[in-house]
């Protein structure tokens, strides 16, 4: 392949010496001719193949004559037209490929590098924006509710990221742990009157327990099989919740779940001294509770992020990533694969459980409808779209996906179409997600991001 500069040089050479040494130009010419010849030959083969097919399918046709007898009708012109179309189409396609291959390949990872550079500042900027959001003028109840929703999904995404992104275990039933957390809190709070702060760790522990329970049978499975079993697990949990009416209320759900309190101060509007507003001498406002919930989910998701980031720099996190890269090598190095996988399931599930408990206290009503497969799918798309293993990518993807969902509410049923198209486009442009590069957990010198092509995706 010759660069455009070479071509210009060729032209200059010819202009300067019209009769002298046309070799290089000749080479180029020959190369171009060879490419054209190859394209034509390939198109001719395609046309011949088309002819072989169409000669029987189109060329010959039995019709019923006017008197009821069958006769053979030939349509050679149609066959010729079809073969011509195939030939022309194939030729154009070939020439297009050839011209595309001739051009220098686009520098890969330019966008990634730009994103990486911006990412250094983007993370803190997003965090700062999230911290001051409730106090930005013009941010009302609706925006805060949306913020809470987005942060819930950010937290779920970060939780699932441990399982899918770091350990490389494809989990299609993550919503099950979200449901376990939500129902744990709802049942403990309504039956035993335990407070949110007692129930939160319990919900996390129960979800982690179920994570381990799911982990055991699926340890031997890989890839598609793992995905199917986790999918089934998610459905089993939902169906059990729907049908175990005496415990969970079945499809009617559980209502009247206690709201969280601010160190024992409730957020009621009565203005009594034992309420939040009364204690701090504020004007009672329904906004207080929303702001509190906002900061609660922000703190929970930051906890998830902090734990994940810490774990990534430790043997456990490194073993997860090594497991994603090559399970057999892990075994040869003496890593207990079973325990490592179970720990990933358990810790991922625990954060799902925390998010579920938060969801229950925020809604104060839960029913199995909130824990359908589509939730798992959304959380998984957030992780995949964000870039598996990338914390920042997941946060951005959650904001785009959940925020975008709300933003395009006016499009009504078209919104799913827009959404699907956007997903397809992103996957075409950035098949490894928004942030596909991997940051090493430790370095002797400066940490340099590892290109997405080298990083494994995990096969279970």
């Amino acid at each position, binding site marked *: 392949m010759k660069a455009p500069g070479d071509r210009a040089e060729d032209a200059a050479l010819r202009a300067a010496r019209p009769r002298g040494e046309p070799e290089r130009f000749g080479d180029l010419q020959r190369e171009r001719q060879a490419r054209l010849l190859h394209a034509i030959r390939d198109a001719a083969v395609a046309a011949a193949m088309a002819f072989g097919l169409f000669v029987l399918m189109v060329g010959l046709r039995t019709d019923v004559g006017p008197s009821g007898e069958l006769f053979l009708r030939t349509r050679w012109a149609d066959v010729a037209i079809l073969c011509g179309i195939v030939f022309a189409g194939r030729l154009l396609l070939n020439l297009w490929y050839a011209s595309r291959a001739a051009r220098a390949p686009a520098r890969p990872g330019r966008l990634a590098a730009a994103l990486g550079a911006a990412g250094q500042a983007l993370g803190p900027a997003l965090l700062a924006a999230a911290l001051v959001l409730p106090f930005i003028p013009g941010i009302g109840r609706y925006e805060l509710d949306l913020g809470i929703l987005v942060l819930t999904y950010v937290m779920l995404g970060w939780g699932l990221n441990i399982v899918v992104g770091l350990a490389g275990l494809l989990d299609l039933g993550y919503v099950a742990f979200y449901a376990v957390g939500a129902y744990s809190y709802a049942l403990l709070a309504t039956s035993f009157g335990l407070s949110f702060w007692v129930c939160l760790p319990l919900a996390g522990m129960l979800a982690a327990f179920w994570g381990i329970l799911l982990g055991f049978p699926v340890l031997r499975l890989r890839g598609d099989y793992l995905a199917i079993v986790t999918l089934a697990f998610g459905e089993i949990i939902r169906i059990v919740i729907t049908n175990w009416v005496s415990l969970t209320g079945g499809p009617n759900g559980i209502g009247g779940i206690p709201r969280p309190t601010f160190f024992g101060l409730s957020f009621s509007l009565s203005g009594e001294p034992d309420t939040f507003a009364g204690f701090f001498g504020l004007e009672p406002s329904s906004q207080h509770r929303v702001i509190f919930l906002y900061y609660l989910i922000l703190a929970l998701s930051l906890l998830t992020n902090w*734990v994940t980031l*810490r*774990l990534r720099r*430790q*043997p*456990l996190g*490194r*073993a997860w*990533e*090594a497991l994603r*890269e*090559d399970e*057999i*090598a*892990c*075994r*040869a*190095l*003496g*890593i*207990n*694969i079973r325990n490592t996988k179970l*720990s990933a399931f358990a810790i991922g599930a625990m954060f799902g459980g925390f998010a579920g408990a938060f969801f229950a206290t925020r809604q104060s009503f839960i029913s199995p409808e909130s824990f359908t497969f589509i939730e798992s799918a959304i959380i998984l798309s957030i992780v995949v779209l964000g870039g598996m293993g990338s914390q920042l990518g997941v946060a951005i993807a959650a904001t785009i996906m959940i925020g975008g969902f709300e933003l395009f509410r006016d499009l009504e049923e078209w919104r799913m179409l827009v959404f699907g198209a956007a997903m397809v486009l992103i996957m075409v442009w950035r098949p490894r997600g928004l942030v596909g590069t*991997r940051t*090493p*957990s*430790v*370095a*002797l*010198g*400066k*940490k*340099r991001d*590892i*290109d997405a092509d*080298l*990083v*494994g995706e995990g096969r279970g």
Partner: protein
Amino acid sequence: MSETAIPVLRRTPVPDRREMILEVSSLTMRFGGLTAVNQVSFAAGRGEITALIGPNGAGKTTVFNCITGFYRPTSGAVRLHRRGELPVELHRLPGHRIARAGLARTFQNIRLFPGMTALENLLVAQHNRLMAATGWGIGAVLGISGYPRAEREAIESAKRWLAATRLTERADDPAGALPYGAQRRLEIARAMCVNAPDGPGLLCLDEPAAGLNPRESEELGKLLLEIRDSGTSILLIEHDMGVVMRISNRVVVMDHGRLIADGTPAEVRADAKVIAAYLGEGDEDS
């Protein structure tokens, strides 16, 4: 490479003759009706390099996989001998316990963690020791365990092995981006980081010279000799006879699933059965 010191404790300067580190006795492995390995017995000496050779399909890799716990032998035993302790029955251990017993391996087709840096690869190899230092992971997350010190030590071990394999410059490069020869060396370094800082008692290498050019093979031979002299015994499968004959203390030859010769390189080279196996015999399909 010779100027970089190999960082392992020198256990005994001169091993007494034929003290076993690995004992393979009557090992048989059947896959359905096929007997890949038939009643194979041999021993690898402590402080020695033992080579396992044979024509393609002789069952070398199967023996290797039985020793390293990737296959469970149909019958027979594999024992790892340790000074002052009872031998470990490797064929009864679950896969991940074998490395903890002091046996590390590499793979014929390199199995690094391509998306992790060379340094990270070496740290993953020290997983068990580091994990013990984290206090079940919880202590280290909260920052209240002795983990940072353990990690510093692990990085020191890794650095020494990076130096020994001439990979210090590439420590922060992803393993998948290293050239082929460097990947081979990194895999050996990673195996040597198992059970660091002492290193594994026995290093099993599956065709370490495959795909290397003559100069790289030469270097590999030197590296293996240094590893042996530092106290880790070596068992290797190899096709490169130059390397095998130059560095091995003992050569075990297999053909069609059976052991056909076991002796010093000179003895094996003169063995009629070995020559027949390699050159083919009238009545055998070679």
